[in-house]
C-alpha cells in the first residue's frame, strides 16, 4: 500500500498540493487547542486517501495531452492531436454510439420497470413482497460475472430454439433474418442488473415518504392518478433521477456483462478501450478515457444541478442532491 504514497510526489504533485491546501485550512474554530498527534494523523490520512483516489484520474488527463507517437509516458510536449484522432476514428464513433444507445435504453427501461415495481410492491400481500425482495437481493448479491455467463447461456439457448423456426418460416427468402447476440441482449442483461438498483432506491424513498400528503389529496377528492402525478411522483423524483443516472453510467462503463453477451456489431466503448490496452496503453486510449470522464462528469453535474433545483423549488431542507442520495 506504499505505492500511492511514493508515486504521489513524482507524478501528481499538483494534485497533492491542491489536496493539502484544501484540507490544511482547518478553520479558526479549531485553533484554540493544540492539535494532537491523532488529529494530525486523521488529517494526513484523509489527504493521502484523496490523493490516492485522484492520482489515476490526473494521470489519464495529463498523459492524454502527450504529443508523443510512441510510449505513453514519453513526454514530448503538449498536444491535442490524440483528441482529434479519437474524434475522427470511425471505430470509436461507432463504439460510442453503441454505448450511448445501450445505456439510454437500459436507463429508460430499468428506471420505468424499477419504479413501477416499487409502486406495485406497496399494494401486494407481504408474502408476495418478500418473494420479490428475495429475488431483488439475489440479483444484487450474485457476482456480475455469474449473471453475465448465465444470461449468455440463456440467450444462446433462445437463439438455438428460435433460429430453426425462423429459418423454416423464411425458407427460400433471399436474405433470411436470424437472431444473433447484439444490442438487444446487452440491454436485456443490463436492465436486470439496474432494475434492482432502481427498485431499491425508489422503495427507500417510498418508505421515507410523508403519507399525510397522499391522504390529504384523497380527502380533497383527487383521483388516484392525480394524486400520483401531483404528490407521489414529485416526492419520488430525486430517487428516480438518481436511479436513471446510476443505470446510465453503469451501462456506459460496463465491461463484464457486455463482453459476454455482445455480438458482432455491438462493440461498446469499454470493449474498445479494453481491446486497445491489450497492446499497451497509448495516448489515444487516454484521450478516449478523458473524453469519457468529461462525459460522465457532465451527466453527473447535470443530475446534481437538477436535483438541487428540484429541492430548492420544493423548499425541502433535506440533502436531496446526488451525493446525499448515494450516501444514504
Amino acid at each position: 500500500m506504499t505505492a500511492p504514497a511514493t508515486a504521489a510526489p513524482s507524478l501528481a504533485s499538483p494534485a497533492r498540493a491542491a489536496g493539502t491546501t484544501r484540507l490544511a485550512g482547518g478553520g479558526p474554530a479549531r485553533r484554540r487547542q493544540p492539535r494532537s498527534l491523532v488529529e494530525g494523523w486523521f488529517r494526513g490520512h484523509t489527504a493521502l486517501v484523496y490523493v490516492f483516489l485522484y492520482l489515476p484520474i490526473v494521470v489519464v488527463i495529463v498523459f492524454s495531452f502527450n504529443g508523443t507517437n510512441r510510449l505513453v509516458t514519453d513526454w514530448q510536449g503538449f498536444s491535442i492531436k490524440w483528441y482529434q484522432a479519437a474524434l475522427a476514428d470511425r471505430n470509436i464513433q461507432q463504439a460510442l454510439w453503441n454505448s450511448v444507445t445501450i445505456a439510454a435504453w437500459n436507463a429508460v427501461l430499468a428506471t420505468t420497470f424499477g419504479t413501477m415495481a416499487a409502486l406495485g410492491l406497496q399494494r401486494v400481500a407481504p408474502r408476495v413482497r418478500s418473494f420479490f425482495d428475495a429475488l431483488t437481493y439475489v440479483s444484487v448479491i450474485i457476482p456480475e460475472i455469474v449473471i453475465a455467463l448465465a444470461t449468455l447461456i440463456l440467450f444462446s439457448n433462445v437463439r438455438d430454439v428460435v433460429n430453426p423456426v425462423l429459418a423454416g418460416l423464411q425458407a427460400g427468402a433471399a436474405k433470411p433474418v436470424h437472431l444473433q447476440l447484439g444490442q438487444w441482449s446487452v440491454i436485456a442483461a443490463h436492465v436486470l442488473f439496474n432494475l434492482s438498483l432502481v427498485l431499491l432506491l425508489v422503495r427507500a424513498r417510498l418508505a421515507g415518504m410523508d403519507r399525510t400528503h397522499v391522504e390529504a389529496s384523497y380527502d380533497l377528492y383527487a383521483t388516484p392518478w392525480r394524486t400520483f402525478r401531483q404528490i407521489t411522483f414529485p416526492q419520488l423524483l430525486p430517487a428516480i433521477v438518481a436511479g436513471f443516472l446510476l443505470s446510465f453510467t453503469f451501462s456506459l462503463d460496463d465491461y463484464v456483462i457486455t463482453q459476454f453477451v455482445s455480438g458482432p456489431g455491438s462493440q461498446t466503448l469499454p470493449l474498445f478501450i479494453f481491446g486497445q490496452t491489450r497492446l499497451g496503453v497509448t495516448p489515444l486510449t487516454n484521450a478516449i478515457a478523458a473524453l469519457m470522464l468529461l462525459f460522465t462528469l457532465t451527466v453527473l453535474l447535470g443530475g446534481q444541478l437538477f436535483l438541487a433545483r428540484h429541492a430548492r423549488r420544493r423548499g425541502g431542507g433535506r440533502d436531496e442532491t446526488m451525493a446525499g442520495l448515494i450516501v444514504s
Partner: protein
Amino acid sequence: MTAAGEVATSAGRRQAERQAGRRARLLTGALLVPASFWYLVLLVLPLVIVGVYSFGVRGPDGGYQPALTFDNYAVVATRFGPFWLSLAMAAAGTALCAVLAFPLAYFIATRATRRKTLLIILLVIPFWTSFLIRTIAWVTILGPRGVAGFLSDLTGTEVQLLGTPGAILLGIVYNYLPLMIFPLYVTLERLDRTLLEASKDLGAGRWATFRQITLPIVLPGVITGSILVFIPLMGEYVIPAILGYGKVFLIGNVLQLDFLVSRNWPAGAAKAVVLIAIMLVSISFYLWFMNRGRRTRDVSVL
C-alpha cells in the same frame, strides 16, 4: 373495504366496489409484470440452466452436451487454487478497505465542519467515473516507467509490480474504497457525540472510548460496507485482467476463460455454482460471526 359491511350497501354499490377492487388488482399486477418477467426469465431461469449445465459435458465444438456427470465438480475440487486466491484477495481487500476507510469516514463525519459536502462530492466523483479507465491508469502508474521503474533505479534490481497479486490488491482497494467509506460515514454521522463526552467524563481514555462506544455503534456500517465490497470482489474480473497481466488468475478470470476462450461451458457452470455456494456460506458465516459478537457484548453490558 371493511367499511363496506357497516354501511348499508345496495347490491349495485357492492358490485361497483368489487369492480374497483378488481381494477386495483389489475393495476398492481400490471405494475409488477415487467420486473417479474425480468427476474424470472433473466435471473431465475438462467441460474437454473447453469445448474443443469454443470452436470453436462463439453460439446464437440464447444458449448454444452446433455449428460449426467459429476466430473466438472471433481475438476473444481482438484483445481481449487483460483478459489483460494479469490477468497484471500477478497478478504484482504475488504480488510484493507475497512482500515483505510475508517479514519477517513471518521474525519469527514466529525472533523470536517463546513467542507463536509465538498469532501463527500469529491468521493462520489471517482466512484461515478469509469471503473475501467481508472484501473487502466494504474498500468501507467505502476508500469516500468512509473513506480516500478523508480523502484528499480532505487534498488538497482529489476522490480516488477504489474502481474503481481500486490498490484491487483492495490487496484481492488482503489476501486472499492468508496463502497466502504459511504456506509461507515453514514453510521458515524449519526453517532451521538454526547456518548463520547460521557465516556470521557467517566475517565475513559481515547482507546477505551473508541473500543467501547464508537466501534459497537459503527459495526452495522462495517458489516454493510464489508458485504458491499466483498460481493463484487469475489467475482472480480476486470482488475486482475488488467493489472494481473494474465499472470494472476482469480475465479472471474477462470470463468471468462472457460466460457469465452475454451468454450467449455459445463466446466465453467460448475465453477459458477461453487462460487455462489462459497459466497453464500462465507456471507452467512460473516453475518453470524459479527452478530454473535454483538449479542454477547449486549449481555455483558446488561
